[in-house]
């Protein structure tokens, strides 16, 4: 019966080893990420730069509706910095004592303000295409973070013979290759506060790190707890094996 386990494990490993393919059948190249592996953590500086890219480039069209401003504490910001960052945006509140809705600066407890009031407004402002919410992007696409990076650096001229419709762009890694989003990143498109040179690749790494954190803000806690759980279970299982052997020693 041990063969069964080997067969199934082999099948599972094959599934693990096969590289992630975009819908077009293009292999998505793997990048080195600060957050990969059992001990990986999010690179704080990259996340802060990523937030800047989100704010200056993506936020014009894309929401991150599942994030609250208070979550930015994970990026290493102080409560005052978060309050100031949130207050740059206005949210509707109310009704007040007179029954009127009113606008006020956003607070740390508010969700990130969305660029459009609803999906129809978003479509109307984007040539009919709906810019998806980015809160779960790193988990909602095959290939995850590697796919996001590949997509952001994957804009090329269309190969000879392929037509790109008006208002669309050619992207090597996008399913179907025609994407409604024009190339979002350009060299020196943002000026990083920490002086890092803002190449397209650098911005793509930073925004991907930020969005991966946005998808799973508890990843670091999960891995840290996992280490303790696994170590405990290893020792505990070792003891159980010893107990079992002792008991069965006179069982035969």
């Amino acid at each position: 019966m041990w063969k069964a386990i080997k067969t199934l494990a082999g099948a599972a490993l094959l599934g693990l080893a096969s590289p992630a393919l975009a819908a077009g059948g293009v292999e998505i190249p793997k990048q080195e990420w600060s957050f990969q592996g059992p001990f990986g953590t999010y690179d704080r500086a990259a996340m802060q730069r990523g937030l800047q890219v989100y704010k200056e480039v993506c936020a014009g069209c894309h929401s991150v509706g599942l994030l609250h401003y208070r979550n930015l504490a994970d990026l290493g910001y102080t409560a005052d910095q978060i309050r100031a960052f949130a207050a740059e945006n206005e949210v509707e509140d109310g009704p007040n004592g007179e029954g009127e809705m009113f606008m006020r600066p956003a607070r740390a407890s508010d969700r990130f303000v969305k660029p459009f009031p609803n999906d129809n407004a978003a479509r109307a402002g984007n040539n009919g295409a709906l810019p998806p919410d980015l809160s779960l992007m790193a988990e909602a696409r095959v290939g995850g973070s590697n796919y996001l990076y590949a997509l952001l650096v994957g804009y090329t001229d269309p190969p000879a013979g392929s037509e790109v419709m008006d208002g669309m762009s050619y992207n090597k890694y996008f399913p179907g290759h025609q994407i409604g989003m024009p190339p979002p990143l350009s060299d020196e498109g943002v000026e990083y506060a920490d002086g890092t040179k803002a190449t397209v690749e650098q911005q793509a790494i930073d925004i991907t790190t930020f969005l991966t954190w946005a998808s799973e803000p508890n990843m670091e806690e999960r891995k840290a707890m996992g280490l303790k759980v696994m170590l405990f279970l290893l020792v505990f299982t070792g003891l159980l094996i010893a107990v079992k052997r002792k008991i069965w020693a006179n069982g035969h």
Partner: protein
Amino acid sequence: MSSAPQWKNPVIRWVDDRLPIFTYMDHEYQQFPMPRNLNYFWNFGALASIVLVVMVVTGIMLAMQYTPHVDHAFDSVERIMRDVNYGWLLRYIHMNGGSMFFIVVYIHMFRGLYYGSYKAPRELLWMLGVVILLLMMATAFMGYVLPWGQMSYWGATVITNLFSAIPIVGDWIVTLLWGGFSVDNPTLNRFFSLHYLMPFILIAVVGLHVVALHVSKSNNPDGIEMKGPQDSVPFHPYFTAKDSVGVGVFLLFFAFFVFYAPNFFGEPDNYIEANPLQTPPHIVPEWYFLPFYAILRSVTIDFFFIPAKLMGVLLMFGSILILFILPWLDTAKVRSARYRPIFKYIFWIFLFDCIVLGWVGAKPAEGHYLIIGQIATAYYFVHFLLVLPILGKVETPLPLPASIAEPVTGGGGGPGATAAKMEKS
């Protein structure tokens, strides 16, 4: 060994005289005779019951935070992931626990197939197990709908639509399942209600499964009955200790996925909120349904008066229902594959066939995938309806050992000694 215990503690004695729970526990979980030659494949029943408890506990906790409404379900799950204390842990345990449950139960079932555990006098034990499998499948299917992601929605749409293939009452059943004319809020509400209810029915059937087990006792790798005290050891401490080892190893496996690959068994599409206006490019069920999904999609032509769609549905349900009559389809008197030289290979061919079906189920139903799926589906039924009945008549089994104790203790030569060697391999 089986004499009634004398309780010294007066409180325990008082209770036990009126409600003999202590005597019952002593009899069924302390003195209870277990074949002494069981291998680690006999851990998986205990593991399944542990997963069931884990699923019920985490499920009740999640239900305290979850909102079964199409406008809020997706966000409430993400709120559990982000803002509820250890919510991510509860949800990842529950989500991966579903896969763990099926891994454990499938191994448990294939162990039963290999060692002939379904044969007399354990037919009802086996049939109750098939009922448990059906309840698990219904529960898992409805649970997968609750996060209200794209795969939740479209999986629910595809699977509930299957019932429309039933003649005359099909459309009526589908409307009843949906609570309307498409998968919508009433569907989500009733699925949540049933997803909460079914595990408790499952627990009741597991109770019957255990009662039946304690009447017929465990089968064993030699597939021969215990003939006396020399063949058995008491459940405690021998199998409490041995099952604990299995639990430790299993929890390591479980924890690895929860903490280091929590989305390994999932589909990225389910992190996109359900959108009735946008069909995902590939609708695939969870991995544990893939072999049945392959059988469903293998029928492409009408069978006389039965339309292809209905035939696919019949075969899919038939592939599970056929397990109910397996004890009578397998005509061999010898239980264990150890002493069935041909069946031993047939078993592995059948397991391979099931894996092929699972692989095909994950692929689009076209081209050579479709043909492989059709061959594998045909073989699945040939195995049960032709191979097993005929093999039992024509196969010459190896001589069985005189008793369980003989091969285990190594006493006596011949077939017993062979079996002892095989157990170590």
